[in-house]
């Protein structure tokens, strides 16, 4: 667990200082710089017939726009939110991939701060979208009192829906991303630490188990790349679904 709370480079995060700066923060900053650089290089000389670099960047942008935003929200309603969804997707993707990049070796999203901020951003955005579309009263009405339910059931449903809208949605977004990245890092550390231990400390035949754990480590690394992409996709997808709930017409 110490990996997630490394010693501060200056200041100290774990003792409650707000301005501590440690290894994870450094990784996050590096990732941000790399991501911006990549996007800038990809779109610097944007031409109508895209070159190779521009093509890759455009593929990513197009994926978010078509596969996530427009498929869930529809072409017209998606327009104001594409920028947010794209930012979230690329930020989460880059931060996740830092977990398998050599020398960085820890995902920027594997401590609670970043997922929490992104989830709160989503929460505020869909609340604002709902309020803007329906007005405060009507929005709460449609969210907390779903129509077509016999009225005594509201005693049960309304608190559940309130919990769902205001707490559970951002909380599950945060926990899903955080726990996935944390579990991934633990698995990676476990397999490679086991290889190290078996190869260097194990006596006799025990050394033969080392290639096995090393192969496991390679497998977990590839699996982590898959999980990183998947979690970025799911985060953006769920954000657009929550927006869709907020923007829904009355039934």
């Amino acid at each position, binding site marked *: *667990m110490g990996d997630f709370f490394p010693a501060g480079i200056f200041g100290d995060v774990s003792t409650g200082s707000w301005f501590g700066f440690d290894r994870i923060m450094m990784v996050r900053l590096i990732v941000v710089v790399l991501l911006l650089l990549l996007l800038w290089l990809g779109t610097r000389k944007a031409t109508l017939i895209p070159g190779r670099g521009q093509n890759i960047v455009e593929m990513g942008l197009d994926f978010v726009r078509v*596969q996530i935003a427009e*498929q*869930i929200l529809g072409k017209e309603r998606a327009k104001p939110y594409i920028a947010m969804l794209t930012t979230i997707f690329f930020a989460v993707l880059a931060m996740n991939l830092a977990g398998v990049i050599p020398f960085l070796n820890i995902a920027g999203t594997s401590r609670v701060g970043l997922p929490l901020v992104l989830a709160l951003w989503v929460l505020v955005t869909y609340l604002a979208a709902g309020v803007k579309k329906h007005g405060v009263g009507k929005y709460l009405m449609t969210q907390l009192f779903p129509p077509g339910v016999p009225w005594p059931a509201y005693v049960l449903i309304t608190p559940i829906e309130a919990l769902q809208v205001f707490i559970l949605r951002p909380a*599950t977004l945060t*926990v*899903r991303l955080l*726990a*996935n990245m*944390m*579990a991934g890092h633990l698995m990676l550390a476990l397999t490679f630490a086991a290889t190290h231990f078996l190869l260097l400390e194990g006596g006799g035949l025990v050394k033969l188990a080392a290639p096995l754990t090393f192969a496991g480590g390679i497998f977990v690394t590839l699996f982590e790349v898959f999980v990183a992409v998947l979690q970025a*996709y*799911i985060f953006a*997808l*769920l954000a657009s*679904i929550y927006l869709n709930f907020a923007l829904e017409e009355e039934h």
Partner: protein
Amino acid sequence: MNGITGSIATIGYGLATIGPGIGLGIVIGQTQIATARQPEVAGRLFTNMMIGAALIEVLGLLGLVAGLMFT
């Protein structure tokens, strides 16, 4: 007499994976069946499958978080 030592929470997380495992199996399996029957809506089915899978996954991850919190 010294048998197994360690935290019982480890077993708890093992148990917590059973439910989501069953759930994911059902969701993905049914999506496969539906895609085989109607390949033309495969994209839409896949998106819905991901949403369902994400919701189920949280339950397993809650087990992981609880395991880390209460050891």
